[in-house]
């Protein structure tokens, strides 16, 4: 009897030890990733959260805790709201276009194998280009007098606007550059998604009576791309929210804030006006927005796989 008890406690201890060892191994394996996450994500975020509650200015000697004052200021800041609205407009403009065009290009390339590689390369080329460098090229293309676009428009009797200096056109012009770059990226993702659809499904659809391409698209292609489309839309939305380089290189948010967007506004408050505390508060709001988009994706994904 007592021997049994002794044995079972010894077994229990052995088991506990083993579980401890397993846990240690687990933590050990997770350590590098955890350290990186801490250093690159959590600590900066926490610092931003702390700074957001202060009036800290870059290089200042003194810093004081001011509670939610930065957020109250943000609430009343017209420039912030304009940047917010511009970002939403820019996103609403570019996401449907670059997702739709990416899908269209992928379908066209899949439909006709001739020159597939060439087209794939051509469409993908913009993705590999450094946007800041390409911005110079775009500046020239969109030049009011000498630019390719307006020269072409003049040929057919239209006087094109100064694309990057007109408050009405500047967001659309920047959006166009984004679409130009993002479409190729989305196309590659859609091509991968299309590869995952069994050719037998298309054959089955034809035998079942789906004679028209649009019928096969709705029965096979579109449902087969559901996960890809969700992913592409979320990725594109996030990229679109994060627009910065074209704004910084081409318009600096102008004319009169017409192309000021959230990230550029943060940059300007933080690094031009040196208002680090205020910029941190805006960064938190920006982060919340990004998290919301990611959560929409996660929610949709779970619903999709269930």
């Amino acid at each position, binding site marked *: 009897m007592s021997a049994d008890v002794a044995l079972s406690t010894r077994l229990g201890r052995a088991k506990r030890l083993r579980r401890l060892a397993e846990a240690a191994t687990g933590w050990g394996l997770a350590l590098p990733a955890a350290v990186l996450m801490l250093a690159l994500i959590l600590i900066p975020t926490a610092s931003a959260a702390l700074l957001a509650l202060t009036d800290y200015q870059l290089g200042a000697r003194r810093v004081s805790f001011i509670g939610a004052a930065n957020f109250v200021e943000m609430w009343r800041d017209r420039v912030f709201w304009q940047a917010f609205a511009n970002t939403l407009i820019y996103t609403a403009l570019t996401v449907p276009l670059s997702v739709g065009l990416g899908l269209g290009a992928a379908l066209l390339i899949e439909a006709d194998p001739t020159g597939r590689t060439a087209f794939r390369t051509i469409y993908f080329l913009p993705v590999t280009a450094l946007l800041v460098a390409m911005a110079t090229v775009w500046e020239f293309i969109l030049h009011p007098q000498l630019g390719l676009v307006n020269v072409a428009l003049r040929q057919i009797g239209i006087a094109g606007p100064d694309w990057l200096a007109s408050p009405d056109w500047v967001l659309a012009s920047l959006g166009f550059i984004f679409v130009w770059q993002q479409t190729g990226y989305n196309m590659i993702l859609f091509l991968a998604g299309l590869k995952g659809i069994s050719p037998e499904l298309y*054959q089955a659809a034809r*035998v079942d009576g789906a*004679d028209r391409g649009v019928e096969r698209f709705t029965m096979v292609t579109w*449902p*087969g791309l*559901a996960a890809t489309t969700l992913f592409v839309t979320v990725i594109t939305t996030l990229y679109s929210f994060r627009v910065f380089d074209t704004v910084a290189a081409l318009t600096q948010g102008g004319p009169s804030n017409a192309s000021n967007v959230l990230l550029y506004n943060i940059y300007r408050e933080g690094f031009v006006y040196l208002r680090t505390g205020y910029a941190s508060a805006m960064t938190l709001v920006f982060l919340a927005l990004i998290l919301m988009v990611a959560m929409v994706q996660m929610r949709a994904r779970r619903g999709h796989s269930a």
Partner: protein
Amino acid sequence: MASLEIDGVSKRYGDNLILDGVSVDVPDGAFLTLVGPSGCGKSTLLRILAGLELQDAGSLRIGGHEVSHLRPSRRDIAMVFQSYALYPHMTVAQNIAIPLILRRLPLWQRLPLMARLLPQARSTLARIDAEVQAAMEMLGLTSLAERRPVQLSGGQRQRVALGRALVRQPAVFLLDEPLSNLDAKLRVHMRSEIAQLHGRLGTTFVYVTHDQIEAMTMSTHVAVMMEGRLLQVATPSEIYADPADLRVAEFIGSPKINVLPARVGADGTLTGVGLPVSGSVAAAPGTAVQLGLRPEHLILRRGGGRGTVSAIEDTGPERFVSLVLDASDAPVVARVAPDHCAGLRVGDDVSLAVLPGKALVFDHAGARLGFDHPAMTPGEFDHVR
């Protein structure tokens, strides 16, 4: 329901001739099995029949009508694919209903709201629903109607694919290796289910497989295909007993038919085999031929010094004895009753004879040669046995 005539169908992919003048006719209600090794062009022929692929030459008639110029949906055929090809986002019932919906409802009436608003669309949908229910009942799918394909087992998916095919009552069923993704036990079960379905529907079936057992057990007609040609089309028993080509004889039957080199003697008898084979070949003396002997047509006896046992396999109901003939060094397998030659061991000395009239003779290229054998009296038969 319809007869099927395939006439001189050829197909090329680039430089490769995949189908080389394939011709076969089967009557209404036949179960035609295309059997052959992987890559011989079976699926290509089936896809051409379905209209998913266009042949380079030759014609196809279903029920006497040329169909080569028709698209798949107009050919009155239904197809079951190897991967089942069920629409993953649709339920079982929706998958089965699709061919009817596509045929009976114009595109705009399929929009979700339209079906509810238009009385005419509603009544069409109600009729479709009744037919889908009947098909599901026939296949035992009623309780699974609302499931999606991912929630089904392989056998259930297979049945849904069959349901989608039969709900339309097509003239010809095309099935491309429908059982190859199932486990062995289910395969045997579905084999008889499909055969029964054929019996009940009485429709013409064209069934593609690389499995000779499926071909032999289910079909009324077996077409053996190799390298893009049909070697023989016949009933299963003819294919087995009376193969037109050595490749047919080698493909059908397990264990494989024994092939021994031989030469035609002066009076047409076979020489150089290493065992007695009575009969005369319709070929010039001196011709090299190949002798095909099915394992169950060999009579094995102890002693006699014709060969040596190299392996013995007991499967339960029967015993396979592998031996090497002294005369030709050729390996031979004999299929005997499990209690035959009890105590036989590897290395034992045995003799071998051929059941009269069962030897098959082929020329060097594999074409079957005529082989006359003397009529046997019952007495003689006892003697050999």
